């Protein structure tokens, strides 16, 4: 109980929107005295949640808030979820999330996931099931739980693959999942295949694909995601291959219609290869991705940026001193076009059309060092430093004045997280 009050007292010092006040009061009523693992007196019903508050200070460019100068407390994640086991084969789960992330997210609560999960086949060596509803998108190692600090290895995930600026589009879909697993003599294989409608209602997708918020809107079309994972029997090696194929239509406003002479379609494709090697104290992780955005008839996407293959990768290592302390190092790289890694070709093409674009907006290289301290099962703090060359994943929403954007910039992040 004392910890709850301490948490609320710290959070009250922050500038809170009315939505946060409603959520904090609701949490006070709903918080269980036991940990997330303890069964409530209704043993098939579980509730849990998390709160993360981050302080970000950047040199030169803003990230998830007005972080230049004194820094920003504009990055907050609060979630509460419920799980009901209706029967051994049928379960229901839902999570309400509030996320503040500078101008990319205003903290308004939303249903992060709400799904029914039915197990068709449930054997020790193989299984098959269905999930339906708003379900987290399964790609890469970290996408399903990217908003929960306790399931991330550090504060900010590798931005070359897990973009913060298009979070809603990436994180979940209204979809049907078919999932299964098979135990073999060499290890465990599991796969998930998704057909669903991506979430494109926020303006962040417009900023990412069109460079700015526009009068029209994106409309989701049925899209596909698939992932196959392998885990060796000694749990040391984990590998995965993910494929994402999103289809969107752009519905222009009346004022925009004369500029459009095509279908206004976007076809986004991404392949990710993921590999992890785990030891008792060390973990080594790497992911490599290629992306292609192909548009047809959207006036805002210049032809020189259309149908290009972007490339991303990161390598990361973690060393655990014990269950409380660990340190992490990562090198993360993003190229908007793998045939133009320094962005100069793109810059020259647009300059010929009298459009000024900085070449460093087409790549980003990030070196990160971090440390984590788990004070208890419920509390965790992290500190990390990023040194970034390039602005390819910088949110334009937080950097409206493009003349102020610098090529090289640093970021200091500190976060405190609580789970219940």
């Amino acid at each position, binding site marked *: 109980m004392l910890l709850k009050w301490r948490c609320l007292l710290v959070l009250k010092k922050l500038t809170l929107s009315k939505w946060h006040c409603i959520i904090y009061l609701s949490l006070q009523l709903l918080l269980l005295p036991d940990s997330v693992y303890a069964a409530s007196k209704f043993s098939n019903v579980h509730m849990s949640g998390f709160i993360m508050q981050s302080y970000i200070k950047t040199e030169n460019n803003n990230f998830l808030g007005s972080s230049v100068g004194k820094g920003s407390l504009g990055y907050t994640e609060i979630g509460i979820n419920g799980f009901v*086991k209706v029967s051994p084969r049928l379960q229901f789960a839902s999570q309400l999330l509030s996320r503040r992330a500078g101008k990319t997210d205003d903290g308004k609560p939303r249903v992060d*996931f709400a*799904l029914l999960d039915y197990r068709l086949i449930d054997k*020790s060596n193989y299984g098959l099931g269905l999930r339906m509803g708003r379900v987290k998108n399964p790609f890469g190692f970290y996408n399903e739980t990217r908003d*929960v600090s306790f399931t991330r290895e550090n504060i900010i995930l590798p931005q070359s693959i897990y973009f913060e600026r298009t979070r809603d589009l990436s994180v979940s879909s209204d979809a049907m999942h078919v999932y299964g697993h098979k135990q073999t003599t060499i290890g465990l294989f599991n796969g998930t295949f998704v057909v669903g409608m991506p979430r494109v209602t926020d303006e962040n997708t417009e900023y990412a694909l069109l460079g700015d918020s526009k009068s029209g809107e994106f409309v989701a079309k049925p899209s596909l995601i698939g992932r196959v994972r392998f885990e060796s029997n000694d749990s040391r090696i984990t590998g995965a291959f993910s494929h994402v194929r999103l289809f969107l239509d752009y519905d222009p406003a009346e004022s925009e219609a004369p500029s459009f002479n095509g279908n206004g379609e976007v076809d986004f494709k991404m392949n990710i290869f993921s590999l992890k090697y785990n030891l*008792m104290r060390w973990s080594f992780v790497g992911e490599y991705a290629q992306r292609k955005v192909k548009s047809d008839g959207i006036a805002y996407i210049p032809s020189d940026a259309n149908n290009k293959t972007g490339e991303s990768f990161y390598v990361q290592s973690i060393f655990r001193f014990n269950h409380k302390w660990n340190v992490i190092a990562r090198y993360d790289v993003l190229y908007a076009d793998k045939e133009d890694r320094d962005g100069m070709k793109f810059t020259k093409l647009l300059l010929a059309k009298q459009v000024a674009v900085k070449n460093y907006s087409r790549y980003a290289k990030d070196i990160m060092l971090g440390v984590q301290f788990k004070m208890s099962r419920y509390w965790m703090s992290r500190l990390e430093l990023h040194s970034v060359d390039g602005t390819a994943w910088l949110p334009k929403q937080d950097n409206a004045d493009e003349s102020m954007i610098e090529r090289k910039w640093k970021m200091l992040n500190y976060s405190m997280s609580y789970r219940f």
Partner: protein
Amino acid sequence: MQYIGFYKMHFSYCSRFPKWILILWVLSLCLSVSSKAYSNDIIVHSGVEKKLSRNTLRSIYSMRLQSWDDGVGVTVFILDPVGESHRKFCLETLSIFPYQLQRVWDVLVFSGTGQAPVVVETEQEMIARVKSTPGAIGYVTKMEVPAGVKKINVE
């Protein structure tokens, strides 16, 4: 320190070999060796089958297996997830690092695709909860089989 001395001695003889082999060899020294002498006994509710394979145990503790063959739901109990008993159980019986298993549970809970096991504070509470919960499974340090629960043989 003994490992460093061992490496130096062999390095002088093995300098002909590609360095990457030596690096792999040194890294392999860091690998924990699973011991065949388990520190824990697996206990289950009296209604549960007595033989389980290691892969089935991993499936249970990774929360993949939801029900036993007779349709009764599986309820999984653990001791303090950062305690020594749990650590030995993970390494010796499940062949998985404790932090990996913790992450599996966290991903299930925070993606809505499953639930975490139930944490109990003491071995006495573990025995009492397994005894009274149909379909329950847990572990205790090696002891005589308590009344009311079965000890599982791991194949």
